[in-house]
């Protein structure tokens, strides 16, 4: 049974000019100890989706439909039906969300230790000494010196240190699911590398399932087992990492992969996607990628293409011309898209 199974989840932003469909009929599953990358650009709805998974959507948003089924030791519950107390328990004990280090995720006027204590107390760990030992253990886990970090105020830590403390804090109650929002954005290259290696290490040791959202494909290549790409609020493709990188079936995934240059290996025919990002207020009828898609035909503009299974296992794409995309790419070899289209 998957740890998390999301079915037809839709989330709207209520604005004066009417509802904006930020997330539209999103479905995906996450197995135990599996890492899923949700890749999308601005306006794709990835953050709205992630925050929606723990029902933390800001004021002015509404989950219109869909289920979020969470399973632990064989018992499945729909998060959307949890009452306030159970929801509070679910948050952090079951699913912990780690925000971007660049955003100020720490209360600036109290020390890191107080924020550890707050979290522990909120989940019934009253004994200060036990919380202190747990904090030391967690900070040790993320290679930080507890004596220096705990008494410090948030602004006294560097970006990299803050991201590590956030990760340590997220593991306090041994959650089964850790959700990370852009875990390495706004960090320097070497710090980014240390965070990626740290996440790999922790995942191996503690076996939690992980979802992370990012606009950066290279992080997905590093960490993910499975990937979904989102465009204008919808999942356009879901696949294992190798299938997504070497055998993409949705024109947007192809375009995105082709638009990212690499340092090692040949550059190939790197190229941008024409046009500009979708305006969620005025989405076109039919496939929202049609205006920018080189393979679009009239049928594409008729209706929203559903997610259909494609020619490799556990691989789906929301494009009625995915076979044509496969032909254009040609070989299924483990060669980057940019080189195949060179």
């Amino acid at each position, binding site marked *: 049974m998957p740890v998390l199974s999301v079915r037809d989840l839709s989330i709207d932003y209520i604005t004066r000019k009417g509802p904006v469909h930020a997330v539209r009929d999103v479905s995906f599953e996450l197995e135990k100890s599996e890492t899923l990358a949700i890749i999308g650009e601005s306006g794709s709805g990835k953050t709205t989706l992630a925050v929606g998974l723990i029902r933390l959507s800001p004021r002015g948003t509404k989950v219109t439909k869909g289920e979020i089924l969470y399973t632990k030791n064989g018992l499945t519950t729909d998060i959307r039906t949890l009452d306030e107390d159970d929801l509070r328990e679910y948050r952090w004990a079951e699913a912990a969300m780690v925000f971007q280090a660049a955003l100020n995720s720490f209360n600036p006027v109290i020390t890191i230790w107080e924020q550890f204590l707050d979290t522990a107390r909120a989940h019934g760990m009253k004994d200060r000494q036990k919380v202190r030992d747990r904090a030391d253990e967690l900070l040790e886990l993320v290679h930080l010196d507890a004596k220096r970090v705990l008494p410090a105020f948030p602004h006294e830590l560097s970006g990299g240190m803050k991201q590590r403390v956030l990760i340590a804090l997220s593991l306090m109650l041994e959650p089964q699911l850790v959700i990370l929002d852009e875990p390495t954005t706004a960090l320097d*290259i*070497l710090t980014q590398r240390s965070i990626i290696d740290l996440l790999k290490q922790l995942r191996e040791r503690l076996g939690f399932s992980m979802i992370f959202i990012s606009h950066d494909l*290279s992080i997905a290549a590093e960490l993910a087992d499975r990937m979904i790409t989102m465009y204008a609020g919808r999942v356009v493709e879901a696949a294992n990492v190798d299938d997504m990188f070497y055998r993409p079936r949705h024109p947007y995934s192809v375009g995105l*992969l082709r638009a990212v240059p*690499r*340092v*090692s290996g040949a*550059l190939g025919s*790197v190229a941008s996607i024409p046009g500009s990002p979708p305006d969620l207020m005025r989405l076109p009828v039919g496939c929202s990628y049609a205006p920018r898609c080189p393979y679009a035909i009239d049928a594409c503009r008729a209706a929203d293409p559903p997610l259909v299974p494609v020619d490799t296992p556990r691989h789906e794409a929301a494009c009625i011309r995915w076979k044509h995309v496969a032909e254009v790419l040609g070989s299924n070899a483990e060669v980057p898209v940019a080189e195949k289209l060179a």
Partner: protein
Amino acid sequence: MNALIELDHVSRTFTTPAGVITAVDSVSLALGQGEAMCLVGESGCGKTTTGRLLTGLLRPTGGRLLYEGKDVWLTKGADLARFRRAVQLVHQDPYASLNPTRTVFQTLSAPLFRHKKANSQRQALSAVTELLQRVDLSPPENFIAKYPHQLSGGQRQRVAIARALTVDPKVIVADEAVSMVDVSIRISLLNLLLALAKEFSVTIVLITHDLAVARYFASRGRIGVMYLGRMVELADTEALVTDPAHPYSAALIAAIPEADPDITRSKTRVELRSAEIPSLLRLPPGCSFHPRCPLAEAGLCDVLVPELLPIPGTREVACHVAVRERTSERAVVTA
């Protein structure tokens, strides 16, 4: 080829309540006409300050800034203004680079009127239309009357580039100009800058932390790697990417995640001796990378500040060990 614009051992310090910070430490860099090069480095390495020094918006506290051979900060009045117009800056944040209360036309026509490149409405209108076409914002009529908040991030950066072009600059410093724009349209912005370099022989310096973007943009040019205010390596892009001379460049290239599962998961790591970034207030003696450098030799690297010295293959590196190994007679030519 004599350099169009050159930094000659330029330094810049800032006094803060906590002490004096050397943001840029005697950096030398010569750029020819139409050259497209990149300055790369992590935050705090001084690449943004170097960019500001190049544009003349920031006065160096040491060394000289030469433009067409003349020391800019010794020139006065008209010459200084001419230099100031010849070097333009394109900023990082598309949401802050354009004045929200002015339309695209007002933003682009102000410099045209100011420098007598247009004397009437009609001339300004046609000049602006041509500028918008040159930065691929077509049809121009859709953009002229728009306010910045009605444009996407990519479109705003194009207007910012068009604004820089209003004064026919010889040099454009693009400070992280693509890092806040959607991944899928970055390449088109880089291509626009490359086209300016090729067709109008404008020298372009792209400042970025993203080595992959740097490799694409300067694939036929050079990359300069900076660390804590110093230029540690300056080399042709392909040479630097495939065979980095300075241990810091090697560490960066090894650490970068690649958008390709097979390559990125099989990369060999460079283990640094410490992850701690030294404070700009108290730089380590000698080479400031020595506390973290796997090749550091006690008595040499922690005493003597390495100069940027040439090594075979039109390259320069500021590392005693690298220079010694690559220039000694019995240097084995590595594959």
